[in-house]
C-alpha cells in the first residue's frame, strides 16, 4: 500500500529537520541544503510505491537518498565551483551565558568539521554518525572500500588534530 498524501505530509514534518541537518552538514551551505532537502522529499514522494516499512524505516529511506543527493550536489559543485560556498558556513550552536562544556565542544566540532573538505566531511559523518558500513559508503560515494576507509581515516585524523588544537 503506497503512502497516502496525508501520511507523507506527516512524515515530511517529522523528518524534515533530520534531512535538512544532514544536507547542511554535508553541503555546508544553508540555501543549498534547503534545496537538497526539498528535493529529497519530492523524489521520495515520487518513489513512494517503492517504500516498504518492513525493509527500512522512513528515516533510513530518506537519509540514504539525502546522502546520494548530497554526493550529486558535491559532484556538480566540483565541476562548476560555487564561489559563494564557504566552508566556515557550517553551523555551530550559539554559546550563551549558561553554556556547558558540551556546548563548547559542539562549537569546536562544528568549526573543525568546517575545515574538512566536503568529501572528507561526508565520509566521516556517514561512518561515525549514520553508521554505514565501509561497503555501503564505498557504493554510495563511488569509491573502493580502501578509498572509503582512507577518506574516513584521514578525515578523523584531521578532526582530531583540529580539536586538540582547540583544546577539546
Amino acid at each position: 500500500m503506497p503512502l497516502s498524501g496525508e501520511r507523507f505530509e506527516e512524515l515530511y514534518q517529522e523528518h524534515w529537520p533530520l534531512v535538512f541537518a544532514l544536507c547542511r552538514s554535508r553541503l555546508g551551505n544553508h540555501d543549498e541544503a534547503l534545496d537538497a532537502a526539498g528535493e529529497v522529499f519530492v523524489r521520495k514522494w515520487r518513489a513512494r510505491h517503492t517504500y516498504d516499512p518492513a525493509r527500512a524505516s522512513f528515516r533510513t529511506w530518506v537519509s540514504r537518498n539525502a546522502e546520494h543527493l548530497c554526493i550529486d550536489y558535491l559532484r556538480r559543485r566540483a565541476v562548476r565551483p560555487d564561489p559563494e560556498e564557504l566552508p566556515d558556513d557550517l553551523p555551530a550552536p550559539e554559546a550563551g551565558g549558561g553554556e556547558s562544556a558540551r556546548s563548547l565542544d559542539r562549537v569546536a566540532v562544528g568549526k573543525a568539521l568546517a575545515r574538512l573538505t566536503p568529501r572528507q566531511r561526508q565520509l566521516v559523518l556517514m561512518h561515525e554518525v549514520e553508521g554505514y558500513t565501509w561497503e555501503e559508503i564505498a557504493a554510495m560515494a563511488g569509491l573502493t572500500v580502501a578509498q572509503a576507509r582512507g577518506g574516513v581515516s584521514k578525515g578523523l585524523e584531521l578532526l582530531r588534530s583540529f580539536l586538540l588544537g582547540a583544546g577539546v
Partner: protein
Amino acid sequence: MNADAEGEESVVARDRLTRLLEDWFREEVATSPAGDPRRTPLCLRFHELSGVAEETANLSADERRYTRMNAEERVQLSEDRAAHVRECGWCQRSLTAYRAADAAAEASISISVGLEGQWPPELRDCLRRWLKKMARQEHGQAAPAHFDDEGTFHMRWRGLEVGGPVKVSLMWEGVELPLAHGVVEQGTLEITEPMPGLGVRNVEVSQRLLRVRPEDAP
C-alpha cells in the same frame, strides 16, 4: 607508556570523537527549522505535485497516456493557489524536481516471467545477490523497481524502442541471465506471472544492466 596502554588510549579517544560527532549532529537536528521556511500554506502539497506537473508540462499525447494518475493525484487548484504556484520558487523548484526525478519512468513496464519455476535454487540465490548488489552500485542511473506482496516484479521504464514479444535479460559482469519473457505494447509490458521466492523488495535496477530485445532476435 606501553603498546597496550597506547592502544587503549587510542580507542578511548576514538570513542570520544564519535560521541562528539554524534552530539554535534543531534544538536544540528534539534536546531533545524521544523520545515522548509520557504514553503507556505499556499504551496503545493506533495499529493498535488504529479497532477500539476502533468497539467503544466509540455507532454505529448503518448506521454500523457503513459502517465498514471489516480484520483488522489488529480488536482484542481483555486485561482489564487494556481497563481501562487506559478510565482512561488518553492513550488516551481519542487515541480522541476518532480519532473526530473526518475524522468525515465513514465511508462510502466512489468515483466512476465515464465522461467522462474524452472530456476534452480542456486540461480535464485544468484539473482537475489545481483539485484541487491545492483541496488547499491547503480544508484543514480536506475529505474525504480519493486516486488509486491505477491512477489510480482514491477518496473517502470520509458523509451523502449522495441515492441511485441520480448526477452528481458539481466547483464552482470559479462554474464547474461534470462530474466523474463513478455510483450511490450506502447512501452508497457504487462505482468502475467509473479516471481515469488526471491525475497527481494524495493530494488533499483539499472536500465543499462537490463537487455530487452525481440523474442525472435538471435
